[in-house]
């Protein structure tokens, strides 16, 4: 298994060049090659959504992609949501609404939600529920997460969701 490829991937604004096996998962690349362990792996079969990252701005499951597929693309992980020591309004909202307990699924929710909250100034509750329906949380029962989404939208768009 030495099918090696050299790839250039921009993650959170930094461009990395690495040589990886063709079969290396993008999630393993982010976590173990780049040391960005905020992206979590919950199921490795694309259901739980914990490993969600932004791939050219779109949420994707990094456990369902190979690192080589990211060659030449831009990725954002939870570590890139805000400068160190600061929080994105979405992160603040999660804190204020008690939208996380163990926090393992949280980075996946945040990455799924970032484009959603930024592009939906007035979503219905049903739309919010649909937006997070591809992310599993085993601790919160989702209620506080939904409240956090509304709060984040208020912070970002100064509107009431």
């Amino acid at each position, binding site marked *: 298994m030495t099918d090696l490829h050299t790839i250039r991937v921009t993650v959170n604004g930094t461009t990395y060049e690495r040589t990886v096996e063709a079969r290396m998962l993008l999630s393993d690349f982010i976590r173990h090659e780049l040391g960005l362990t905020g992206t979590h792996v919950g199921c490795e079969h694309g259901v*739980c959504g914990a490993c969600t990252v932004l791939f050219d701005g779109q949420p994707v499951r990094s456990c369902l992609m190979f690192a080589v597929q990211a060659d030449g693309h831009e990725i954002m992980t939870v570590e890139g949501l805000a400068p160190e020591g600061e929080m994105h309004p979405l992160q603040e909202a999660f804190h204020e609404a008690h939208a996380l*307990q163990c*926090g393992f699924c949280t980075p996946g929710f945040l990455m799924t939600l970032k484009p959603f909250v930024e592009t939906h100034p007035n979503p219905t509750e049903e739309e919010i529920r649909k937006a997070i329906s591809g992310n599993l949380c085993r*601790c919160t029962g989702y209620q*506080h997460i939904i409240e956090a989404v509304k709060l984040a939208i208020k912070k970002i768009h100064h509107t009431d969701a």
Partner: protein
Amino acid sequence: MAGRYFGQPIRRNEDPVLLTGQALFTDDVQLPGMVHVAFLRSDYAHARIRSIDVSRALDRPGVIGVYTAEDLGDYWQPGPLLVPPPPVEGIIFHQRTQVPLAKGKVRHVGEPVVMVVAESRYIAEDALDDIFVDYEPLEAVVDVEKALEPDAPLVHEDLGTNLAARVVQRKGDYEAARAKADVIIQRRFYYDHGLAAAMENRGIVAHWDKKMQYLTVWDTTQAPVVIRNGLAKMLGLSESQVRVIAPFIGGAFGPKIMMFYPEEVLIPWLSMKLNRPVKWIEDRRENFVATTQERYQVHYAEIALTKEGRILGVKDRFYHDTGAYDPYGLTVPINSQCTLLGPYDIPNYHSEMNVVFTNKTIVTPYRGAGRQHGVFVMERLLDLAAKELGIDRTEIRRRNFIPPDKFPYNNEIIYQDFAPLVYDSGNYEPALDLAMKLIDYEKFIKEEQPRLRAEGKHVGLGIVAYVEGTGIGPYEGARVQVESTGKVNVATGVGTQGQSHFTSFAQIVAEQLDVDVRNIRIVTGDTAEFHWGTGTFASRGAVVAGNAIHAAAKKVREKVLQKASEEFGVPVEELELRGGYVHTKDGRSISLADLAVKANPLRGAVKPGTEPGLEATMYFGPERGVTANGVHAMIVEVDPELMDVKIKKYVVVHDCGKVINPLVVEGQIHGGVAQGIGNSFYEEIVYNEDGQMLTASFMDYLIPTAMEIPPIEVGHVETPSPWNELGTKGTGEAGAIPTAAAFVQAVEDALADYGIEILEAPLSPNRLFEILKEAQAKKGT
């Protein structure tokens, strides 16, 4: 005593690191020279191992070692029995605990057979395919009742039976009560409880530092102290040479306490053998078959009542599936046996528990831990009785509640902590009243339901009551220290898996020392910081660790005031501790920081008989647990074509005594209810007749998403426990316990036209369809 900190909805200290991806979980540990393990697990539920050929795996580049049971030598030992059988007369208990790697025979799918260690996880998994195990398949033991038939195959041949345990507990004289009954209701109930499915799988990293002669282990365990002590013993090390860290853990819900998992035994051993850091991280497929889970029980239960609906007695004989081994003793079935009694004044009880070995993954507690099985049986019996007697379902419950003046209430049987099952306190009617109000019970049954039914809609309501034994011993401890910065450091032995300990424990300390919660650092689950304790389980953190922290914080407060008294030459009673300072009445003040420095001088002497520093370590060891309670109510609508069930409204009224942080309690309840809803209609572990799990992925085992979980309204009743100073009771499991009982009642109510009786959980659209067809067929005959 809701104070400035205690009882307040304070935002969590742990959030910032979790939200920014900076929190350390076990798989985030990265050490130089680290190697990776993968396990070859049994594909068979029951098979003899004829031979194992690992030679091809050993030849694979990058493979460092391959180990079978034979390679472990004397280190191969069955695991310890965690919970011995309770002291009940006439008990039968057969101990058969799990082994590190299967030897001679495999007893469940997922049992580890060979351990491979390689330079990367990818290579280790490649090498699993190189191994050939020659199995002779055996007939699998799957059904708990058939397992006890004389010609059944045996999980443990040397036992001569699949019966793991039999325990009979009695209160009063059921047969005499039965003779006086106006009504007797008998049914067979079936309750299947599922997987914890914490979002983080299990994992272990072990690092043996040969030069330091020191073993560090990161483990996704709920009980780091117990793991440390056990590992030291197994590996022939001093306890002080072993540090177990339970870092941030991505949910646990019970199964992460099954000390010792085979992997917990093997990974540290391997690190010492190789003198390299070793990592093993469970994948989701392994989690389905190798992490402990709960399982089904079959109950043959009957209830005897007067025509007024007063319970005279309950009799139950049940069969509990414990899987292939029973390392956790009888905790789960004893919880079922005890919790069945619920909030009701039941004078006579006869319960026979039969625990059965099967060729399935091991059963240990998962959120609720057998309690929901008992609640389901009791609540269904009451529903049936109410129908039979023509009494409203809330009324029959109300008539049987233990009245508030009867506490402490002795159920006269033995609970999971081996103490008699005595409820400390409770006030059940206000919880029922509040739940009825929040769900608008009268209006629903008198107006809404008839109106919606007339429109052709199938709507129904479920309302059930329950108790939850929480906060059992033996003990927890804590050390509280004011540091020279004035910040406070607190260490306790319990681990944390999302319960908000970094905040709620800090609130307890803040209440005593009046320090900002953000300036109180809580350390949980690091044996180098605190090495006494049992663990986080049985909804006991806030009660047992909480009260230990409270006691230590009070002691530190005394020391602070004493030191200030010496400094100012003013009696303690005339001092006030406020905002990080001790104030005298004449306007002088000194900071906690300065007092901490003065209490730890570099010159001079510390007074004989006193200790340096502003620090105290205290323990809390309750004689027995404390009992929380509540009522859940929901309204559902059933689509009789698709058999889909929508929950339109969900109400929880909960009494966990004094609340430390209402935000946290609400979160716990929401999450528990979500798991309970999963266990009512979506999640089901299905085994076929060969003992193969047919639902070993999230495509087949359905965890509810935000689309399935409705908004949950929470109401509080507060009956403080008189048995601990904080007045707290546990809350971790409450949300999950009565959900299925309420759900089934609501669905049955919604489908009242069809005359069905639902005696099982979980349901599914398919199963509901079958139940309806069966009822229609019966009607037709």
